[in-house]
């Protein structure tokens, strides 16, 4: 029997400073003799990244943000002994400075709807008892005791759930195909090979609520008629692997996995297979090759995996997020799930909101919410003085949606129509200091390394697109480059072997579609309006605005700015490396970005070109 505590301290953000925070909390509680009364629980991700580490104290639901080690004694003294909230650690509305003590009321959370992430950060992911206490395994019990596989599939179909890995294939139909496929041996597989830069939805899920994935997979196994499930996790997620492993062990102990699950006669087991970190292994056929122990390379998929997948047997592969959606659907019914979202995209979707917003983090929103709601209400809008320029969705193979289209509802069809895609849920917000050529170049550079190299269009095409993009951003673009880029992108999109190759040109095509004039400016005017492509820009002091404060002189790493106090300063264009340090520090907007051609440069050409800086800052 579990021990009883009067309070729980839930500590999130285990990838930051939380481990020290946990030990400090435990020490402090020990010191004050409260170890038997208050339990410190290490939980999964709460998603509120800028405010981490965050602490929730139950049962009163006090939500502390940005907790430092030094705050620990105060928290214990004030909250856990005296029962009062420490005001300065509570979340304050940035605009009004109003204190919001409970996290439900924080706009970052209030606009969200957490179905998949329901338990992330709320329970101890290592404890099966806590999962069961919040209603876990009810769905499996219901399915095994009162439903036939056909009924389960019908319920999933009714829910309208679609694959959360990106392509959005109807989950129920996939299950039905697998169930009806000929063959004794079948498999269900969870895809946890999340490789998009800046995406961590699946990671948060596997780390924070591993039982939900196991339960979903077990229900799926029952529905399609198999005894074996696999979870393919990238090895860069050691905590996910560890939590899933211990969850599988516990589930075995509780009779929720193994032979005769819950006494129903249904046998099911799950194995974890660790991936070696190739982005392409998130592609279904490459993933299955990798599962078989071969090199993770895609195969031509004229025959679906539901007929011939892993080891040429019918296989049902879904993203971990899809699997985690299954238990709530079974519990509350497909109709409930279908009531959320839009006509064709049902339920909620987890996103990793990153980039130029005030509150980046892990979010889950109902389908059909507009991009603007996500960016402005949940994300808190752009940093002060900046404007949103575009939102990139769908990971490296997704596309950029311009600010003018921020009222676009987030669902599979709308995003695809806009030239992007849902993807697994990366969402990068970009402001006016982001160069779209550079963004395309960044993603293509990523894909250059992550293309498996099997098919010529993807391997060679990406390489050549990168060459052209690098040239354009280095000021070596020439007329006609855009057209070549377009024809390359079209060929790669049409003729590549797998999804990676087919979607690889999306960053180029979507930026070309919405920001063509920016490309043209790079080539024709040799200028990067966003001030990112260093070879094309120069910094100049606007004499009228400069008050001669000297801040820029101190900031310049090249000692390239001169001037006397209270007199307009000047930048030595020969020494300048276009790092932008002066631009960042100037409080008077007295430094401006101008085309390189607008300034006189020293005899050596002095362009001091260095590789363009990191894009996502």
């Amino acid at each position: 029997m579990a021990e009883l505590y009067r309070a729980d301290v839930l500590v999130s953000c285990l990838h930051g400073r939380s481990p020290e925070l946990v030990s400090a909390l435990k020490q402090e509680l020990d010191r004050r003799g409260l170890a038997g009364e208050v339990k410190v629980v290490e939980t999964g991700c709460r998603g509120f990244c800028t405010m981490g580490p965050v602490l929730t104290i139950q049962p009163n639901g006090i939500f502390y943000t940005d907790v430092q080690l030094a705050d620990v004694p105060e928290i214990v003294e004030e909250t856990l002994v005296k029962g009062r909230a420490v005001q300065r650690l509570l979340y304050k509305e940035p605009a009004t400075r109003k204190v919001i003590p409970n996290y439900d009321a924080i706009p970052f959370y209030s606009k969200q709807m957490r179905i998949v992430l329901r338990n992330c950060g709320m329970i101890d992911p290592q404890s099966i008892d806590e999962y069961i206490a919040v209603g876990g395994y009810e769905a499996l019990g219901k399915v095994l005791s009162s439903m036939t596989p056909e009924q389960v599939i019908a319920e999933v179909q009714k829910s309208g759930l679609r694959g959360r890995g990106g392509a959005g294939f109807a989950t129920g139909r996939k299950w039905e195909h697998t169930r009806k496929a000929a063959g004794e041996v079948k498999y269900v597989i969870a895809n946890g090979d999340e490789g998009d830069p800046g995406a961590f939805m699946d990671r948060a899920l596997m780390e924070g609520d591993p039982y939900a994935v196991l339960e979903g997979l077990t229900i799926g196994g029952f529905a399609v008629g198999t005894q074996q499930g696999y979870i393919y996790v990238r090895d860069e997620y050691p905590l996910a692997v560890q939590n899933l492993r211990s969850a599988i062990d516990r589930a075995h102990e509780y009779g929720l996995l193994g032979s005769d699950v819950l006494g129903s006669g249904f046998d099911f087991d799950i194995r974890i297979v660790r991936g070696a970190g190739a982005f392409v292994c998130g592609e279904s056929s490459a993933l299955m090759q990798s599962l078989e122990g071969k090199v993770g390379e895609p195969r031509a998929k004229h025959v679906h995996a539901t007929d011939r997948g892993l080891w040429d047997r019918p296989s049902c592969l879904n993203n971990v997020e899809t699997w985690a959606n299954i238990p709530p659907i079974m519990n509350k019914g497909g109709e409930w799930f279908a009531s959320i979202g839009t006509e064709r995209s049902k339920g909620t979707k987890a996103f990793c909101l990153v980039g130029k917003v005030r509150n980046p983090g892990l979010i889950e929103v109902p389908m059909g919410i507009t991009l603007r709601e996500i960016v402005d209400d949940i994300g808190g809008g752009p940093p002060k003085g900046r404007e949103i320029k575009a939102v990139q969705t769908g990971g490296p193979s997704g596309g950029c949606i311009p600010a003018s289209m921020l009222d676009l509802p987030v669902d599979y069809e709308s995003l695809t129509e806009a030239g992007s895609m849902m993807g697994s849920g990366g969402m990068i917000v970009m402001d006016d200091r982001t160069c779209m050529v550079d963004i395309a170049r960044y993603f293509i550079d990523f894909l250059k390394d992550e293309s498996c190299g099997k098919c010529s269009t993807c391997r060679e095409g990406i390489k050549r697109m990168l060459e052209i993009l690098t040239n354009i951003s280095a000021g070596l673009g020439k007329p006609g480059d855009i057209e070549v880029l377009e024809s390359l992108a079209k060929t790669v999109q049409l003729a590549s072997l797998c999804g990676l190759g087919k979607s690889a040109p999306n960053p180029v095509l979507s930026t070309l579609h919405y920001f063509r004039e920016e490309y043209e400016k790079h080539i024709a005017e040799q200028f990067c309006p966003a001030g990112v492509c260093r070879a094309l820009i120069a910094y100049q002091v606007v004499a009228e605005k400069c008050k001669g404060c000297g801040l820029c002189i101190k900031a310049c790493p090249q000692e390239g700015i001169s001037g006397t106090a209270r007199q307009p300063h000047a930048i030595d264009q020969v020494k300048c490396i276009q790092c932008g340090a002066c631009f960042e520090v100037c409080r008077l907007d007295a430094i401006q970005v101008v085309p390189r051609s607008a300034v006189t440069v020293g005899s050596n050409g002095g362009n001091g070109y260095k590789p363009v800086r990191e894009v996502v800052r």
Partner: protein
Amino acid sequence: MSWVTLTIDGQTIQVEEGKTVLEVARENGIHIPTLCYHPALEPYGACRLCVVEIIRKGWSSLHTACTHPAWDGLEVKTNSPLVRDVRKTIMGLLLSRCPNVPIIQELAAEYGITAPPFPVEDPTENCILCGLCVRVCNDMVQAHVLNFSGRGVKRQVGPPFMEKTRQCIGCGACTSVCPTGAIEIVLEEAGVYQAKPLGPTAAIYVPTLQAVPRVPVIDTDSCIRFRQQDRTNGAIADACGACQMLCEANAIDFDQEDEFLDLDVGAIVVATGFEMWDATKLSQYSYGKSPNIITGLEFERLSNAGGPTGGEILLADGRKPERVAVIHCVGSRDHNAHEYCSRICCMYSLKQAHLVRDKTGAEVYEFYMDMRAFGKGYEEFYERVQEEGVVMVRGRGAEVEVLPSGKLRVTGEDANLGKLVAADVDMVVLSTAIEAPHDASEVASLFGLGRTPDGFFAEAHPKLRPVETNTDGVFLAGCAQGPKDVPDTVAHAGAAASMALALLGKGEVTISPAIAYVDEQFCSACKTCISLCPYTAIGFVEADNVARVNEALCKGCGTCVATCPAGAITARHFTDAQILAQIEGLFRIPVIEIPNTQYPIPDTQLPPTKESNHER
């Protein structure tokens, strides 16, 4: 097998289910370019060149023809503007990667690209990463040497860690499937990649250009599949099989085995020929230590127009030789090898000297002991070769030494000069002896043949019966009987054939009635007689458990009769009783009744000795 109907470029085609679009198109004469496709290997879809527009259920999309199954109702466009456009871009990409590969240049030109549209990084790059070599090495040969490493633009093909590996069997399958000629097999000086310098080049080959019937054979020692079978004691046979898969006539049958035919014949001509003597047995000639020391037979292959050099006489490194030495009597007329003269070497050595002079103009040194130019026109040829400038050194070539420079030093005694002489040459031809086949003793016991001390089969009489043997109906032809040159062999063989025909023409054989027979009542089945019979005339009848004499073969020599421990064998018309009776008869002097005369018996009528006379 069900049938499907699809349309390719407007042509409605009905095919059996289970083929790919590419296969169907090619069978119907529709050209689709490919680089990574090979009919014997799994389609891979890497080069993307075979993209075609496929319209299915109203949806049009591009797919590679090599991987797309030919489904019912497909509409395929192999040359639409979109397809051509995409292929053109692909060709541009490939040409920029490998600018100097002829097949890529040709294909690119077909799509109007004459120069690489993108910057060329490495003009020597020939590999397009099509994966054919990887597939053939892993799926067919199962040597598992080649594979891809690296990802994306860093992808490359090679053995593990790009290092030499002993796993490579040097089969060359990768080079033969490579569409761009990017793989080269490099022969190592020694070890795994060593190929026989003048051996067959592939596991399937036509034995000679004049072979009858002119069909290829599989060398089971080199064939990957047979070698795998050997390794696994015949358990697995799934390696390679490319020949079977590709043979349109379906003529390859791996299960074919040697057959044993039982024939009833009236005469047998033994023409089992000879073997070349192994020159490594005399180590002073350094055979095998340099590729330029070759035997006379290897020289024949080298000089043959169908040979590896197309008939040119070249050294192993491809240069023309400047000096050649021919050493006679290697293994012949030698107390350490064969004492006999091999008869043919003198003349073939002279012919080869003539060929070297004629084809290369190189100096030729003939180290000979005696020149045996005994046939018609032979002496004249000898004279002619001498006139051609061949240097004759009378004396056995004693030693061949491989110099560090790769040259060969031949030393020997010039008996005419009474001096030791040496010559540094580029090539040495050893005129090796011919000897009886290694299994001659088995053949001999099979046919009841005798063998002369030199190992060849013995004829019935060296002068009077040169083609017959001691076994009736078995004749000898050619070198089975002893070393012979071509005219002698032809004559000998003609004689043997005539003898056999004469026997058959008569239709019957006359045998001597004085032959052995076994009294089966007394035969103890000890089989002593069988092993002793010089004519293999006695067989053992298992059913009756007795030895029985083949009356047609028995010559009535009586060996068995004398040997039989049970006394069960008797020679007909030469029985013990008859012999004893004769002996008895010999000693019995008839009692001559003396008539009433006084004439004494003349001396001449008396028994030969006085003693016997006395005894009587």
